[in-house]
């Protein structure tokens, strides 16, 4: 029979093993959240599609038609769509995971499990929404007759990167949200601000044309840029990768993941006491 020792500071040692052991609960949590999400609202799945769809058309109308920005030779709608979908994944993963611990306070104060599975399952739920919105992309591409190239095969890799990118800040925001209850007022602001700081409605090639290489690199001090550039590269098929900025942004999201995990684990032990 296995013996479990509980001592101050002991939970550190088995952390990753425990995380693996609780994978089934993780699955159930994600499954519950997905079920609830699509049961609660009448329009359910449609809601996941309508929001990005409106954003794409309004963005394309304002920035493509009115402002006349260029989108690497593909229709504005396609390019904005390729960027909006990962952006929506990122932003909803961020806000959902930030609320995941507070929303499951009754579980945290009563049952032990590695707390990390709560924000992680919130990211999974956001990912399911993301998968559904890929339908928009297919529709938009078909309408504008932009046919996928072999580059589309790399999309799963960039999706993985999007996961990593969402996870780091997600964990960080989750922990901060438990510790500082007024942090939730900052999150919508970060999301709204981020939509314009990130190249969602404009492209990084446009930035490069106007401000040179350094301009593009400065814009890439933002973890989501690598994901968006990757998506555009794979979907639109008309741009070349700008490796320095891609590497910078990708490295930034790895650093954020590290910081997120570190901070989350540091504060995790006290969650049950403060929540």
């Amino acid at each position, binding site marked *: 029979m296995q013996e479990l020792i509980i001592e101050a500071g002991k939970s550190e040692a088995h952390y990753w093993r425990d995380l693996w052991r609780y994978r089934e*609960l993780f699955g159930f949590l994600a499954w519950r959240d997905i079920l609830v999400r699509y049961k609660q609202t009448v329009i359910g799945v449609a809601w996941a599609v309508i929001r990005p769809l409106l954003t794409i058309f309004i963005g394309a109308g304002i920035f493509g038609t009115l402002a006349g920005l260029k989108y690497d030779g593909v229709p504005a709608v396609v390019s904005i769509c390729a960027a909006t979908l990962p952006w929506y994944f990122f932003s909803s993963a961020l806000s959902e995971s930030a609320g995941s611990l507070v929303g499951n306070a009754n579980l945290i104060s009563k049952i032990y499990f590695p707390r990390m599975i709560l924000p992680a399952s919130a990211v999974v739920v956001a990912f399911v929404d993301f998968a559904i919105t890929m339908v928009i992309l297919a529709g938009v591409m078909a309408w504008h007759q932009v046919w996928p190239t072999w580059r589309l095969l790399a999309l799963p890799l960039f999706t993985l990167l999007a996961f990593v990118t969402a996870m780091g800040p997600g964990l960080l925001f989750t922990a901060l949200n438990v510790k500082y209850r007024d942090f939730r007022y900052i999150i919508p602001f970060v999301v709204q601000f981020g939509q314009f700081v990130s190249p969602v409605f404009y492209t990084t090639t446009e930035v490069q044309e106007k401000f040179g290489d350094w301009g593009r690199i400065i814009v890439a001090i933002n973890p989501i840029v690598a994901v968006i550039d990757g998506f555009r590269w794979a979907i639109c098929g008309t741009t070349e990768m700008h490796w320095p900025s891609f590497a910078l942004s990708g490295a930034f999201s790895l650093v954020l993941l590290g910081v997120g995990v570190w901070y989350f684990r540091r504060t995790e032990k006290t969650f049950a006491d403060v929540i």
Partner: protein
Amino acid sequence: MARVWDSQPIAFPGDTFDMSLPAIQITSLGKRYQLGAGATERYKTLRESLANWWRTPDRSEREFWALRDLSFSVQPGEVLGIIGQNGAGKSTLLKLISRITEPTEGRISLRGRVASLLEVGTGFHPELTGRENIYFNGSVLGMTRAEIRSKFAEIVEFAGVEQFLDLPVKRYSSGMYVRLAFAVAAHLQSEVLIVDEVLAVGDAEFQKRCVGRLRSVANESGRTVLFVSHNLAVVQAMCSRVLLLSGGRLAQDGSPSEVISHYVRGASSESRWTRGELPRVEDSWAFELIELQLGGEQPRMTLRLQVELRCGGSDVFIAFDILDAAGVPLMQALPKATPFLKPTPLRCRVVIGVELPPLIPGAYAVDAWVGSDFSRTHDHVRNAVAFEITESPTTGRSVAHTSDHGSIVPVSEVIECHPCDLT
């Protein structure tokens, strides 16, 4: 290790665990909480933290040991009851054993899987159907998917909700909800089961089934059960051994009848205060001795307060404030609202009887006051004496009686209750 066979539960053939080793071994366990300046606010705001950035950290934080120096061990198959006042550390102990929070010091060693049944329906989601909730709740309580599947039919049968399995539980009656939740928990396959106040719900018949189920869980499978309840009758009926916690420490450990009777009797019903030194002000009334005796039975408890005073120069009267454990004044006993004590050259002795309203279990403090009119105080002794109430004024109540339900329980009765035609 020397085996004392007589005191060990009988091992069944094919039992996987070594019965000579305790299922739970706790060694000098302690849990400390920090009470901030605002003890009620546990989480901070970012704004405050930023504002305090450059200030030195607040050293006025108080420490509070919810549990200290606790050592005991539980053998497999034991049903251990844990009793004590609110705030004695029972919930903290369970939280430590179920790993919800980490100990500050000491060590817990657990042999086997621990499942807690801390509150019925934890993790139930109203939007999900009964079937979905059985799976989700089972998983939350620590069952694997395969285990839930194999127990599914039993759970449904125990709860008696066959026809409603595919209905969202928000449409369930509260009785059905509780039955389903308990059914899931009762079928947990763990070596150690932690039960906290779950029997507080449901009708009497269902409660009886729950007690039966828990007892058979312990007897048949040799599983260890930790049971926390305020319902002393259920503790007496279910447990093979009882621990009494008081102020975060182990006060007694023994057979149920022994510990429970000690708990009910031994709660402090007497308290005494004497003045260490006399106050400087001469010619002023001052308390020298205050003695309290708690008598009667719930819901009609009485206090007998005996005081000795050094006499001053004017006519005075006395009053007593009764405060709850948090220091909130609940009531003031004022036997006479006009000065009735005449100065004498000697001391004087007063005995006051106070008929208490029905108070919830907990610790209470008494302040004593003497003055010549309402605005002129001669002496005011805060927290002079204290008493503790162990039983709820509501007989038969099984839910923990905490200040969430108010400190005073008014006497109430059913005046009329019969079927009637509303048309």
